[in-house]
């Protein structure tokens, strides 16, 4: 078990290094292919040649890509100084880069934005698990009933609706039309009630989309498992139906759901872009979209890295949880 975790952790680190290198490489290679000056991309449009030259020296853009990559990675652990054009900018560890557009290090921006995205993801996750899994189980148990057909129709519609449409629709109805909620994000520490009020629409909208997917998945898995021999055995030995479903069937139903949950939660850290844009939440996704329109490459790199880390770590946690949930899985 311990050896397994160590091996997986090493794999995680290698994976993150490769993600960084690839992201780096793309922003390094594309300006080259297209003949643009990468240094000019890092500063505003009206920058004079001296400023651009300063940036080139600060970032070591003249160096080979591996040298630049090494500087970036060591900066994460040791911090780094950007020197060039007669000035030096200090970026403390953990240094995830420095935005020359906004003249600030990236890490504090990420620290600012991450709680918003996590609040969004966590709240929505609770809702969609409760809603989706329950709906899926009930549908599987009452297969072919009116409930089942209605639930599955709604679920299929749910997975076909883009979130920026349902989001705008719910804003139009509940915020603008009925005035029940006002969609301003407030930090939890400042005012928990306002935090809740500001997030409830994004939670419900995001959860609806995922609940639809989870209901479909849970129903399909449950139906498959109810046909297994061990369920028949459990029934044959006289176990009551709630025990058969709740203890025996649920345990194996959870395995695929957990897999998807890990992937989805990890992906949400970088993938809540649409929700955050629609509801104007100041999270990581919104920061990324803004960074992209500002061409703030260091910030894009920072968000990409955090998002990739979330995916990889979530997958690791899921793999470890398998052993707890599914007795058939042995880690080795």
């Amino acid at each position: 078990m311990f050896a397994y975790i160590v091996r997986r952790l090493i794999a995680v680190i290698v994976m993150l290094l490769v993600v960084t290198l690839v992201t780096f490489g793309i922003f390094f290679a594309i300006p080259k292919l297209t003949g643009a000056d990468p240094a000019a991309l890092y500063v505003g449009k009206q920058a004079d040649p001296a400023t651009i030259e300063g940036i080139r020296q600060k970032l070591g853009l003249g160096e080979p890509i591996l040298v630049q990559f090494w500087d970036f990675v060591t900066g994460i652990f040791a911090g780094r100084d950007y020197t060039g054009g007669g000035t030096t900018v200090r970026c403390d560890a953990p240094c995830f880069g420095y935005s020359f557009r906004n003249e600030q290090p990236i890490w504090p921006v990420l620290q600012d934005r991450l709680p918003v995205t996590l609040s969004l993801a966590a709240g929505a996750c609770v809702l969609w698990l409760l809603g989706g899994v329950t709906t899926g189980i009930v549908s599987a148990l009452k297969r072919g009933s009116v409930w089942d057909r209605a639930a599955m129709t709604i679920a299929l519609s749910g997975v076909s609706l883009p979130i920026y449409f349902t989001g705008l629709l719910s804003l139009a109805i509940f915020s603008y039309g009925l005035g029940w909620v006002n969609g301003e994000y407030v930090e939890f520490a400042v005012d928990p009630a306002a935090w809740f009020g500001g997030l409830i629409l994004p939670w419900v909208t995001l959860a609806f989309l995922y609940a639809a997917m989870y209901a479909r998945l849970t129903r399909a898995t449950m139906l498959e498992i109810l046909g297994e021999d061990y369920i028949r055995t459990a029934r044959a030995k006289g176990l009551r139906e709630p025990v058969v479903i709740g203890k025996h069937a649920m345990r194996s139903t959870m395995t695929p759901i957990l897999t998807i949950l890990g992937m989805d939660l990890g992906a949400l850290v970088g993938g809540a872009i649409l929700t955050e844009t629609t509801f104007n939440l100041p999270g990581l996704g919104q920061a990324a979209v803004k960074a992209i329109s500002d061409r703030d490459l260091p910030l894009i790199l920072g968000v990409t890295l955090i998002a990739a880390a979330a995916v990889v770590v979530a997958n690791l946690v899921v793999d470890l949880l398998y052993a707890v949930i599914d007795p058939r899985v042995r880690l080795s």
Partner: protein
Amino acid sequence: MTAPLHDTSAAETAAVDVAAGVPAKAIEGRSPWRIAWIRLKRDKVALSGGVVVLLLILVAIFAPLIVSVFGHPPNEFHEETIDPLFSTPKGDWGGISGDFLFGVEPGNGRDVFSRVVYGARISLLVAFLSAVVAVVVGTVVGIVAGYFGGWVDAVISRVMDLLLAFPQLLFIIALVSVVPNSLWGMSGSGVRMAVLIVVIGFFGWPYVGRIVRGQTLSLREREYVEAARSLGAGQLYILFRELLPNLVAPITVYATLMIPTNVLTEAALSFLGAGVKPPTASWGQMLSKAVSTYESDPMFMIIPGLAIFITVLAFNLFGDGVRDALDPKGSR
């Protein structure tokens, strides 16, 4: 399906076995595709999805014709239809009338009907072609990984894991934003579309690759592969003439279910401003404009939203039907 698809002899033998007990009825050999088609014809829901898909394709192909009969040119301003004070359309329901079937765009009075019809072109073209890219790359890479195994498989599998760990949406926007306006002799929306197709396809292939690899792993141990090998068939022959035909069913299912996902991705990218460039019409772009106008003119949000919804739902219903029809475990 153990029999290669171009060879119906196995299905015929099975039919003979069954028919042996039943006296003298015409024996009909049915290929797996024929069986699937018969099942699909019985599935009314899937068929209606298929009909809608067909209609949408026709709309996309004949967009100029449809618009010249029922609408106004998509980029023609009709400022006389706009209330000069609020810049909202005159009349109820976003200015819907016999002249403007879906109303007009707030601000400039462009015909929403024409823009939705032209938007279908972008949406379907990008979705189809990126699915083609993903399926071709995913199939070739997956089949090679599954068949050869060893280090080839190890490398390919790691690359797929890596791509799946990438925050895709974020990355696609970043990539699109650094690609210049003219490339490979194309300019304007042509470049954007080509980039969208390549990039969406590029992030889609690992999903196909994983499935194909898994299937190939089990298929390569089958007797018919061994038989082909013992007859002196070359690697390429085995890969593409023996294995590939048996992979067509899962690949078809995945491809049909991938198209709606790609429609959503294209719309999401356009919504975030990384899709085709204005004034080329696309559904996501219309919704993105609706973010600032939905309070005064909700119709302008609802129509492109419904267009996306109907398209994705139709493809999902059809895809689910195709999956059930091609499922070898399903009832005939």
